[in-house]
């Protein structure tokens, strides 16, 4: 079933892609092929392979239980928050929290998670910023 949904999704994606490709405004100086032809070829392959996937699905993959799925979704949310908070909170603080969260969700105890968070954040800051001179996000506190 997953593959059938995936294949249909591929075909819808291809349709959307064709639609967007046809909407490309051609400039007055164009080559013989133009900016639309290549995307249209790709869309054809996308639609065709989507159809084959939908018609001849592989065995069902092993999907995790709802709880595990929520786990992944929560991690995605945390990482998005991390990306948004980087310029606000600064690299060291944001990274410590994000790394600690991931360690905790992967099964560390609270103490270990905090240690992993702090260690990762300070370790990266020292190696990449202080030693190698990479510019990392600066927060209000300057690190």
């Amino acid at each position, binding site marked *: 079933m997953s593959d059938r949904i995936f294949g249909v999704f591929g075909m819808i994606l291809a349709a959307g892609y064709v639609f967007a490709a046809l909407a490309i405004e051609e*400039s007055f100086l164009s*080559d013989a*092929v133009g900016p639309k032809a290549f995307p249209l070829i790709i869309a054809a392959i996308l639609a065709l*392979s989507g159809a084959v996937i939908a018609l001849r699905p592989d065995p069902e993959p*092993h999907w995790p239980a709802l709880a595990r799925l929520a786990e*992944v979704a929560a991690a*995605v949310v945390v990482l998005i928050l991390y990306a948004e908070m980087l*310029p606000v909170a600064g690299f060291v603080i944001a990274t410590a929290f994000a790394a600690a969260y991931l360690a905790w969700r*992967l099964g560390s105890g609270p103490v270990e998670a905090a240690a992993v968070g702090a260690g*990762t954040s300070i370790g990266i800051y020292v190696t990449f910023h202080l030693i190698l001179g990479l510019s990392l996000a600066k927060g209000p506190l300057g690190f």
Partner: protein
Amino acid sequence: MELLANLGDGFAIALSWQNIGLALLGCFLGTIMGALPGLGPSNGVAILIPLAFTLGLGATPSLILLTSVYYGAMYGGRISSILLNIPGDEPAMMTCLDGHPMAKKGLAGEALSLSGIASFVGAFLATWGLILLAPQLVKIALLFGPAEYFALFALAFMTLGGVSSTNQAKSAFAAALGLGLATIGVDTQTGVPRFTFGEVHLYDGLDFLVAIVGLFALSEVFIFLETRHGGSDAAGRKLTIGKLYPPMAMIRQTTPTMLRTSFLGFIAGVLPGAGASLGSFISYSMEKKLVDKKGTFGTGDPRGVAAPEAGNNAAAGGALVPMLALGVPGSGTTAVLLAVLLALNITPGPLLFSQNPDVVWGLIAALFIANFMLLAMNIPMVGLFTRVLMIPSRILMPIVAMVSFVGIYGISGSTFDLLVMIGFGVMGWVLRKLDVPLVPIILGTLLGNAMENNLRRAVTIDNGNWWTLADSPLSIALWAIAIIGFVLPLIVGARVKAKMHQRRDEEGAISD
């Protein structure tokens, strides 16, 4: 003679303190990444590219660092195969078959050192193969026009699907997806924006480094979160190594095996779409057919350890040939390495050899140096790396995730890129669940623009005649190989692939 002079120049470049240091660092990190299950050559290199890039390393130093990681990972994969019966990366899968039984018999040290030697022989011979074969391929590639290049790119995509995935439709889908992603941004020929939906960040196109790190590194973190596999595979097991040097008799017994499989692995690596996993697979299978008269393969036969290791390391070197000479990578990790070149504005292919000989020969010399370093690290110092196996992934994976973020943030300093990377991470996770290979996606985003430009150039030169794509003997030959490469696995490949893919799960999607 010219060859030796070039090689001499290469050594002059590679033997600077910075480059030696980078090679050493790369070998060390690569061996660790290879040894740790969950981190392989492609995601290891993927994480390090943005870092090498933002640290402002030049082309030669970056390539030296990253190919050392690549070679190192090929060495490191065997460690957990032998000690834990869990392949550290996909190419090391076949090493489990005889390596672990040897370790069970108390011969872990012998198995590790023998496989280290086999890795060295494979990589050493393959580097020579690279030196001899790549310039010949360059001569052919100089005859290529836009139409031939277009056919060559098509060949790369069609053959990649043939071996790397169990489902051709899914690899075609992946390739089209990657090519589609590459078309986002301002059209290079006419200057009109395409698929940007008014988002200014997209005018430049998607940065392929963002896509690579998201697809390869972040999706791995999600897989670990999903299975909550937070422990270390080595937990609770005693890793005894024992004697570290194999008896001379064992080396003598396995020498013919190493030489044969190095050759075979190299060929497998050069062929488009094959890569190191196939190299070790066919090496093991052939040796088994050829020398396993008493049925000892699978029960701890030293030849069964030497064969896949020589094979996969030789294939790793072989896969560099098409990447450097044609600009068309034959395997997952070389696709990622191609991203390094493109990020540094170096166009691989025949011109690389004439315009940047320092890059090519410096890299080759560095491969020789790295290979000796790896031999030293992987035999006397192998105990160090077995300790790395004790690191539980609940500590490792947060570090991997955070370093990925640092690298991408370092390139542009924009939150937008980080969000795109997370998007790719989720996409990679879903696609891996569905067994859609990720390598064609990466290859598509990397080669998409070049492929389209060549297509348009070819057709424009011939005044809009599309048949120009297949009217020279060279391009007809390329198309023929491409079609055979796509169709043949449908007919005969199913059996081989089923065998090869028996043991893999989500790892398969980033196979090398």
